[in-house]
């Protein structure tokens, strides 16, 4: 089993997980990590934080999905026209 290695650039102040010492660049990611990997150990407040972070993440994913769908539609139509013009 390979363990994931991390390297913190000098001068950064990482958010460190108190259960496994893994550093994260933002509080949000730390909250998500704790919820996913240390759920049974969490306090009630931490669990609420996790749910909030999940909700934020869900919103961000929703907008990402829209953009991804736009890309797919664009690719589809670009190829439709390319084939209409070049395929003999």
């Amino acid at each position, binding site marked *: *089993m*390979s363990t*994931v*290695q*991390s*390297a*913190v650039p000098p001068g950064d102040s*990482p958010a460190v997980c108190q259960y496994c010492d893994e*550093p*994260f*660049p933002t509080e*949000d*990611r*730390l909250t*998500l*990590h704790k919820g*996913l*990997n240390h759920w049974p150990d969490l306090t009630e407040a931490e669990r609420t934080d996790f749910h909030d972070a999940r909700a934020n*993440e869900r919103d*961000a*994913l929703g907008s*990402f*999905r829209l953009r*991804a*769908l736009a*890309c*797919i*539609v664009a*690719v*589809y139509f670009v*190829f439709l026209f*390319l*084939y209409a013009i*070049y*395929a*003999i």
Partner: protein
Amino acid sequence: MPTFGIRFGAQVLAWIAILTVLADSVAAANGMTLSKQPREALAIPRWLYLATGGATIGASALLASFVTDRAFIYSLHSRSVSLPRMPAVRRWIGVLGQTLAVVGLCLMVFLGYTGPQLPSASLTVLVTFVGVRAGLPVVAYLVGNPWPALNPWRAITTILPTGFYEYPDSFDRWPAIAGILTLVWVEVIFPVSTVPRVLATAILGYSLYTIAGAVVFGSDAWFEHADPITVLFRFYGAVAPIQLRDGSVEIILPGSDLAQSDVVTDSSDIAFIIALIWELTYSGFITTTAGAQTITTVVESPLSAVMAATPLAVLAYTTLLVIGYVVFLAAYWYAGTIARRFTDTYVTSRSIALRLAPPLLAIAAGYHLAHYAGLLVSLSPALTMAVVSPLSPPANPLVLAPPNWFTALSIAFVLVGHLLAIWEAHASAYDLFPSRLAAIRSQYPFVLVMIGYTIVSLWLLSLPGATPPYLG
């Protein structure tokens, strides 16, 4: 649940789009063959055919990013059925397989020297190239790794004193990478696939090398790290639906072990997987007109004043093998560095590269099937006849001609391999990053590399075949 409905609807729409693109690219490929005869012209420009292949991969990566439910991904990857253990049956299969393999190995070397010097009637050539080079890897990635039950060299080392030195940890799997590249080099440079006597000598040399290695470093360490053939089968076997875990046989969804973190544990494993992809691309390239032209250009350049044609050609083949491998490896490694920058994470680029490397095995499996399916089908009757009567093979064995749609099939194999790789990389990234957006972003550079690999291999499939020049 309305959100589920929307999600499901979007996925159905997206899949329809992707299948349309896929059907287009397969239709575009009709009318080509893998043989060395002139092919019919493409109905669409080549750049459009290549762009479609690349776009298929890119669009499917976008599609994979629609699957954001961790629980769903996890449940797909942990689905498995355990088979009864039956240790006695497995032990007997191993004993029987290894005995047959040792007898087969001796017979192959013997018949290589004494048998007919005709490749399509020689047991040595047919078993090596149709059986071990083409057939067994297919079994390894479609069914399960058969090599531990066959490995004749390992069987031989069980009766020898082994383990005089400890295998140095710092070597990792680098000797296997050197080994696999050397095997490919020998396959290209020497007439091993046409002259049984040369092949028998090569098999003898390889046997001496690998048995000596196992005697010096101990059988377990040697075959786990340094023997290129065993390592190759272990990696191809990681794609298979049948896996051996802690002594029990389990059936899983094909490829779902590729998202596990224990398949690739060291940088040398990444290098080996890239070597698998590169060797198939390389042997594809040198058997096309573009490859032949490249070599001819080098040999007819002013350099020919310094060296004779054949050594210069050998030098050109070798340089191409090494440089191409370094480029493929560097592209993957650089993708790891970029992925780290994109995701703004503290996870090292080495860790990212390690976690996203196993899915590449699906790509290698797809290439292998695309490359060897035709050979396997056309020469399997000859192989069967040579195995049934090894001492008096028919002088004029049956060789099947694969139908034309086989080329379309090989393009489909390349694409399916990439699609599986995209999906498994998605699952690996979800496992690695707590933030799902970071996980999606981390895949962009790897998807670009995969698009590059796809375009190269589809380009090779579209080129007319040629015999590599200047090699006896």
